[in-house]
C-alpha cells in the first residue's frame, strides 16, 4: 500500500466509529423507512410490495390526512405569529434588562424543559370542565363572561370542507405556543445580544429615533435569526404530538395532527402506511424550510443586508 492510501485509510479510521454509529442509527433507519413505505404489512411477518399504493392512499384517498396537515398547520400558524411575536417582545424587553435578564431567561425557558406529556396532562387537568380549575379562576377574578368548555370539540367555530375549527383546536394551539415560546425567546435574545452596540450608538449620534433603530438596525440584523426561529417553529410544531395526545387524545380527529396519524397507524400495524405518511410529512417540511430560506434571502437583500 503506498503511503498516500495508507494515510487516507488511517485518517478514515478515526471517523469510522462515528460514521458507523451514524449509519446504524440514522442512515439505515432512514433507508429502511423508504423500503417499508413501499410495502404493506405489520413489520413482523407480512411484507408485500405494493409500489406507490401507500403514497396514493395518503395523498389521494385518506380523508383524514390532509385535515390533519391542516390542523398541524393551524397550530403552526399560531406558533409562528402569536408565540414568536410574544417571544420577540419579551426578548427585546429582557435584552435591555441588564440586572434581571438572567432571572427572566430562566423563568421563560423553564417551560421548555418540562416534558410535553407533563404539560399536556397538567393543562388538561386545569382546563377540563369538571372540576374546571381554570374556569374557577376566571370566575374568581371577575372574568366569568369568559368561562367556557376549553376542550370542547362539539362546537364548530367555522368549517372549511372537511376541516372543522373548534375550541379544542384553538386551546391546543394556545397551550402549544405557551409551552414553546421559551425556545424562540432564548434564540431571539441571543440574536439581539449579538448585534454590536456601536451601531445603535452611531445611529443615536446621527439622530435616529428608537423605532428607526429598530427598523433599520435590529430587524435587518435579526432577520437570519427570525428565519431560523421560524424554520424551527415549523419543524417543531408540525411534528408536535405528545402534548396534543395528552391534552385532547385527538378529539375524535378534530385535533389530530400528522404525527398522531402516523402513531395511530403504527399502533394499528399499518407500518407501510405510517412510513409513507412520515415521508410525505418530511417532504412537506423540507419544502417549507427551503422556501423560508429563500424568503429570508429575499428579505435580507430587499433590506440591504445582502447585495441584491
Amino acid at each position: 500500500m503506498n503511503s498516500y492510501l495508507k494515510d487516507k485509510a488511517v485518517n478514515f479510521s478515526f471517523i469510522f466509529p462515528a460514521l458507523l454509529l451514524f449509519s446504524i442509527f440514522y442512515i439505515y433507519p432512514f433507508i429502511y423507512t423508504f423500503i417499508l413505505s413501499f410495502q404493506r404489512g405489520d413489520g413482523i411477518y407480512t411484507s408485500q410490495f405494493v409500489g406507490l399504493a401507500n403514497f396514493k392512499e395518503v395523498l389521494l384517498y385518506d380523508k383524514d390526512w390532509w385535515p390533519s396537515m391542516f390542523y398541524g398547520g393551524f397550530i403552526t400558524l399560531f406558533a409562528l405569529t402569536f408565540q414568536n411575536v410574544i417571544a420577540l417582545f419579551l426578548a427585546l424587553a429582557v435584552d435591555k434588562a441588564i440586572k434581571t435578564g438572567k432571572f427572566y431567561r430562566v423563568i421563560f425557558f423553564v417551560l421548555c424543559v418540562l416534558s410535553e406529556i407533563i404539560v399536556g396532562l397538567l393543562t388538561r387537568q386545569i382546563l377540563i370542565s369538571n372540576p374546571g380549575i381554570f374556569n374557577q379562576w376566571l370566575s374568581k377574578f371577575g372574568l366569568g363572561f369568559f368561562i367556557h368548555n376549553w376542550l370542547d370539540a362539539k362546537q364548530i367555530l367555522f368549517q372549511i370542507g372537511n376541516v372543522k375549527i373548534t375550541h379544542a383546536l384553538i386551546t391546543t394551539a394556545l397551550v402549544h405556543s405557551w409551552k414553546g415560546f421559551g425556545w424562540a425567546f432564548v434564540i431571539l435574545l441571543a440574536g439581539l445580544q449579538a448585534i454590536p452596540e456601536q451601531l445603535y450608538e452611531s445611529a443615536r449620534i446621527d439622530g435616529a429615533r428608537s423605532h428607526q433603530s429598530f427598523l433599520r438596525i435590529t430587524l435587518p440584523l435579526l432577520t437570519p435569526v427570525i428565519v431560523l426561529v421560524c424554520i424551527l417553529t415549523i419543524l417543531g410544531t408540525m411534528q408536535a404530538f405528545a402534548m396534543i395526545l395528552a391534552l385532547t387524545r385527538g378529539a375524535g380527529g378534530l385535533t389530530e395532527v400528522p404525527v398522531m396519524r402516523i402513531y395511530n397507524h403504527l399502533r394499528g400495524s399499518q407500518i407501510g402506511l405510517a412510513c409513507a405518511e412520515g415521508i410525505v410529512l418530511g417532504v412537506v417540511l423540507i419544502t417549507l424550510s427551503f422556501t423560508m430560506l429563500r424568503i429570508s434571502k429575499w428579505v435580507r437583500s430587499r433590506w440591504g443586508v445582502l447585495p441584491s
Partner: protein
Amino acid sequence: MRLSKMSWLIIAITVFFSGCAPKQEVDEKKIVVWHWMNDRKDAFDTLAKEYTAQTGIPVKFKLFFPPDIYSQKVIAAARAGNLPEIFGILGEKQSLGSFIKAGHVLDLTPFMEKNEKEWKKSFYTQTLQTTVFNKNNSYEVSPGIYGVPIDATLMQFIYNKSLFEKAGLDPNNPPQTFDEFITYAQTIKNKLGVDGFVCGWGEGWLINCLAVEWAINIMGEKKFVDTIEGKVSYTDNDWIKVFSLFKVLKESDILANDITTMINKESEDAFSKGMAAFSFNGSWTVNVYKQLASDLDYAFFSLPRVSNRALKVWGGAGSSFMVKAKSSNKIDAIEFLKWFTAKKQQSFLIKNTNNLPAIANCEEELPPILRAITDNLERLTHPNIWPYNEDSRVIEVMNKALQQIVMGIKTPQDAAKEIQEIKQRVANQ
C-alpha cells in the same frame, strides 16, 4: 514505547467491536418473562420467588410499561431474535398470527392436550380461544394453541348504588333496557346534579367495545361477523340503529362533559368520586376502585338491551403468555406456565389483583362483585375469537365517527357511509 497509527487503529476497532459479541446465557435454566402489567408486578415477583424456591429454576419477571412501549419492545426484540422465554403479545389477533408465522411462538397444543387434555380443560373455553387458531383460519396460521391465558377480562356496565339510593331508585335493580338506562341516568342527573354516564371514550377502543356489544344484540353475532367479512354493509339498517344509539346518548344529555377526550383513568377517577351514575369498563376496575375509593358502593350489570336477542359480553383472556419457539428452555418455560395457571397460583392472583381467573373452579376465591359476573365468561365475544378481524383502518374510522356522533357533529347515516367507504377501499386493496 510509541505505537504506530496502524496499531492504534487495530486497538480501536477491537475495542469498538468487543461489545458486539452475542451474549452468552450464563444460567441455562433461567426463565425470563416480559410483561406490561404494572398493577400485578408484586404478585408476579412473589410467585416467581416461590417457584424458584420449589424448583431451583430462577424466574425473572421484567416489567415494561406503558403497554405501547411494551408492544414496540416485543416487536423490536422479535425482529432482532432477542425475545425472552415467555412474553405477551398485545394487539389484534393478526399480530399474534404474524409472530407465529415468523416462527417466534411455540405451538402449545401437544402440551395442552397431554394427559387427556388436562391443562387445556382447566381453562374457560373462551379465554383459551383467544390464542387458538382453528383449521383454515383467515390468518393462514397453522392450527394450534399458541398462548396461555393468565386471567380473564369482561367489559361491563357499572352503576353507583349510593347515587341510586339518593335519587330514590332501587339500588338492587339496575336498568335492563336501553330506554330504562337513559331514564335512570337522567333521573340521577336531574336530582343529584352528577353526570349520568362517564367513560374513557377519548380512547377509541372503549367506544368500539360498546358499539360491538350493541351491534351483536341488535343483529346477532353472525350478521356482525358477516359485516367484517364484507357480506353485509355498514350502511345496513341494523348498523344505522347501532350508531343511532350513540346519538340518543348524546341527545339525552346524560354524558359527562369532555367524554370524547377523556382517557379511561380519568373516567375511573370520576366514577370512584361519585361524579357519575354509570360507567362502562373492564372487570379490572374492581382493583382500581379498591385503590381509589375502597368504600365505593357499586355493582356490575349487563348491557342495557336494545333487542331480545342474546347478549354477548366483550372479553376474553385479559392477558396471555406465549413461549418463544426457539428457546432452549421452552420445556422449563411450559412447566412454569402450567404451575402458574394451577388453582393455587390463580387463587393467589385473584386475592392480590382482583382479576377474574383464566381457569374454572376458582370462583369461591373471588370477591362477591366479581363472582356475580362469572357466568358471563361463558358468553364472551372478542375480535380474537371471531373468524375474521376488521382492518385497523376501518376500526379507526368507526371510532372517530362514533366520537363525532357523540359530539353531535356527525349523523349516524354519515358515519355509516364513511365507514363503508373505507371498508370498500380496504377490500379493494
